[in-house]
């Protein structure tokens, strides 16, 4: 294509694109995000494409392989526009039937519909499904209608209009002012007001400035940024372009994990498309602005998500953080003023410019008109995982309650189990108990409660989760990911891990509890970077809200969740009807008995390894777990 050389040309090109697209043509949007890839969504998309062609519907129906739709639990997913029919768990071999019956015959395939676990009713329209109905998708919505690698698709839905507006009508200072007034706060976890950061960076002395997109999302189980980059890379790029204009930068970097191959590839395609169209390069849209973006792939160290470690890594050094007493907005990458925001923050920027500060500040909590820390505005994407019915990516306005997210959208706890807690904010987030379910979710409320927003991980725990084991799990992750530079983080996390391990394995002494308290506070207060300063959160929050579980382990050798192997014993109770399934499944030959009703099966405690297989395979609830019995 010919480079677009002015705002006017951009708008006329957009008009041509729109005219060339038949508004009556139906769209089948097939999720081809990473989650659905495991369910052969690519085969599904190509099978649908082939069927549309062979059944002669090419003029009437278009198959669009898109980024993540969010409802990963139900993959592979497809939704039709404008009819809004939602099919889930679709296998590629259903393609012919779908095209023939639904698109030729107008018939809905009942067995592909979503069944509401609460009412038991089938729901045909996506917008009626509680998982979607209760969300407010502002960032994710666009990604469900476009091919991630297609610039034309992005332009057709209004892409780069915000950039055009900024370059055509606004001065850099006005852009910063809008972003400040919008109350946009950093979605990477810190919650620092983006406008304040931009302003400091723009005013820092120096001729070279960098903008950086942090896509080093490393929380286990979290994939908000991954999905945004995979599904709508141009929206992130547009945000960076606007930031670069506001700050006065000519070079941008995206630091993305090498483990995100699809994100890297879609981003590369987006960069190539934008360069070809003249949206990156020199004299962008005739404004005189020069800007380009380079991708730097990270090796996967969790600490490289920390801004100073990330910058060290871009420079080619070991990803080790440094103290930020001189901020990176003043001296960052190559000692130049550098403005780093994460993927989701950048993706918010075009939205703010397009829809305006008033629209944006109407969403969320607090008042940011005078103080940018005064509230949390806009939407936030959470990756809702763990023991919840509807796992997936959810986007909600700031300020909804945890209950709304977990129950209205998430459909509550799996298998009718009791809710025990929710960890927000990734591995170094805290865990909040049931009494917090009705608290609004925003930056300040979560921090007050002893957890954090983080980048938006949300892990739901049920009654079977041992909270000491939970703390141990994340300590194990963090002690491994600690860069090892500062004493408190390196040694402190290792020692906290050892203590929780001793507690779980029944070796703890009473003095270990106050020692853990003390240690957690030092790790929080004395560590160099945000990794160490927040790493104690899983311990601090569980000590605060689930202290009785620690005490049960230490003083009574009991694991209330019946999960810690050293403190539980399996036995067969009177409900046993002699089916011998447990005996056959036990990999250690620990169960003895005759296959007949009335016989008493026995578990040999010297052979039992607490693998839980008998417990899980028994259909009659005849395997009991006792705790508090030291073997």
């Amino acid at each position, binding site marked *: 294509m010919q480079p677009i050389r002015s705002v006017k040309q951009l708008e006329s090109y957009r008009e041509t694109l729109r005219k060339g697209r038949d508004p009556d043509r139906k769209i089948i949007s097939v999720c081809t995000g990473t989650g659905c890839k495991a369910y052969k969504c690519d085969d599904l998309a190509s099978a649908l494409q082939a069927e549309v062609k062979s059944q002669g519907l090419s003029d009437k129906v278009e198959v669009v392989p898109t980024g993540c739709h969010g409802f990963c639990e139900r993959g592979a997913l497809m939704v039709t526009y404008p009819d809004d029919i939602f099919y889930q768990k679709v296998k590629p071999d259903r393609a012919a039937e779908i095209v023939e019956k639904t698109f030729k015959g107008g018939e809905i395939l009942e067995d592909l519909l979503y069944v509401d676990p609460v009412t038991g009713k089938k729901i045909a329209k996506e917008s009626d499904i509680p998982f979607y109905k209760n969300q407010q998708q502002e960032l994710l919505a666009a990604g469900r209608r476009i091919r991630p690698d297609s610039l034309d698709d992005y332009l057709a839905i209004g892409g780069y209009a915000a950039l055009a507006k900024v370059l055509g009508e606004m001065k850099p200072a006005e852009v910063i002012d809008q972003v400040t007034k919008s109350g946009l706060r950093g979605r990477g976890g810190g919650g620092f007001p983006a406008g304040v950061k931009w302003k400091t960076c723009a005013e820092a002395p120096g001729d070279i400035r960098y903008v950086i997109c942090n896509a080093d999302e490393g929380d286990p189980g979290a994939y908000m940024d991954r999905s945004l980059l995979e599904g709508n890379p141009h929206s992130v790029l547009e945000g960076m372009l606007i930031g670069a204009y506001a700050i006065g930068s000519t070079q941008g970097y995206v630091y993305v994990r090498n483990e995100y191959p699809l994100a890297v590839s879609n981003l590369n395609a987006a960069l190539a498309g934008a360069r070809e169209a003249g949206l990156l390069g020199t004299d962008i849209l005739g404004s005189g602005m020069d800007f380009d973006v380079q991708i730097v792939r990270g090796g996967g160290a969790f600490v490289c998500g920390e801004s100073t470690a990330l910058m060290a890594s871009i420079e080619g050094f070991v990803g080790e953080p440094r*103290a930020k007493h001189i901020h990176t907005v003043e001296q960052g990458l190559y000692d130049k003023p550098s403005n780093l925001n994460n993927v989701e923050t950048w993706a918010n920027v075009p939205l703010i410019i397009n829809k305006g500060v008033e629209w944006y500040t109407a969403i969320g909590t607090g008042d940011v008109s005078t103080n940018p820390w005064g509230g949390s505005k806009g939407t936030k994407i959470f990756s809702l995982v763990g023991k919840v019915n509807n796992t997936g990516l959810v986007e909600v306005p700031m300020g909804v309650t945890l209950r709304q997210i977990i129950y209205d959208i998430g459909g509550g706890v799996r298998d009718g189990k009791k809710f025990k807690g929710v960890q927000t904010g990734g591995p170094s987030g805290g865990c909040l108990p049931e009494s917090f379910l009705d608290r609004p979710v925003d930056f300040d409320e979560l921090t007050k409660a002893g957890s954090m927003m983080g980048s938006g991980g949300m892990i739901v725990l049920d009654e079977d989760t041992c909270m000491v084991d939970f703390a141990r799990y994340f300590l194990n992750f963090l002690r491994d990911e600690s860069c*090892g530079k500062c*004493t408190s983080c390196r040694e402190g996390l290792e020692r906290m891990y050892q203590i929780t391990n001793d507690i779980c394995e029944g070796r703890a002494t009473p003095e270990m509890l106050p020692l853990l308290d003390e240690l957690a506070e030092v790790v929080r207060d004395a560590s160099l970077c945000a990794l160490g300063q927040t790493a104690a959160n899983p311990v601090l929050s569980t000590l605060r809200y689930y202290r009785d579980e620690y005490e049960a382990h230490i003083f009574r050798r009991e694991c209330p969740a019946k999960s810690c192997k050293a403190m539980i014993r399996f036995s067969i109770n009177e409900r046993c009807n002699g089916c011998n399934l447990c005996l056959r499944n036990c990999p250690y030959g620990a169960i003895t008995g005759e296959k007949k009703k009335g016989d008493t099966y026995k578990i040999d405690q010297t052979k039992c390894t607490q693998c839980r297989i008998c417990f899980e395979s028994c259909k009659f609830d005849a395997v009991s777990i006792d705790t508090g019995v030291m073997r």
Partner: protein
Amino acid sequence: MIEFTIDGKTVQAERGESLLKIATEQGFRIPHLCYHEAVQPYGACRLCLVEVTQTSHGRKRTKLTTSCNYPALEGIEVVTQSERINKNRRMIIELLLARAPKAKRLQELAEEYGVDRVRFPTSGAESDHECILCGLCVQICRDVVGVDALGFTGRGVNKEARPPFGEPSTECIACAACVEACPVDCIKMEETHTLRTIVRWERTLPMRVCETCGYPFAPTFQLMHFAKKIGKSLSDFRVCPDCR
């Protein structure tokens, strides 16, 4: 020059100078292990923690921070001793002592701060004078000596300061600057009449013997390194500094 206070006393300094450096010059005692005035502050040991009260973005906040890498700024209030600071210092000493129980410097600090026991299991006999990862050897070799024979590998407690690939060093000039700088004496040096060994880096190099007094005065490789740096040749270093 800017003005700020340390424990209530008004001091003047260049903007951006290290708080630890200024405080030490002013006679305040702040413990430290990884700070050395010859290199950039690294901020690893966390012993030099102080409390700094500062106003930024209209909000007055007090934070616990290391003084070695904190820049002197107009109007800040620095506190070098408080219960909060000592509580953290004590735990850091205890953590380091668990790692290197026989380090004399740590034992002295433990006594000074009243750390009378270590509540963590120590790793046993092999941890005799173990490294505390202060990074001084790496920094000094790179930034002062200019040889860059050492680096960090690994993460977390598995982090190590050592020559590349964990092999005996091929770059080390046996100048012993690291031996001198190590706060816990875990880099040992052995000398015979003609050879010097830096035990930790498994590097043994010949010594230059003074042509006048016959005494070995420096490793030949070190002399070569410095001769090259100042544009001279090894033959310019035939006699020891005493006989020159």
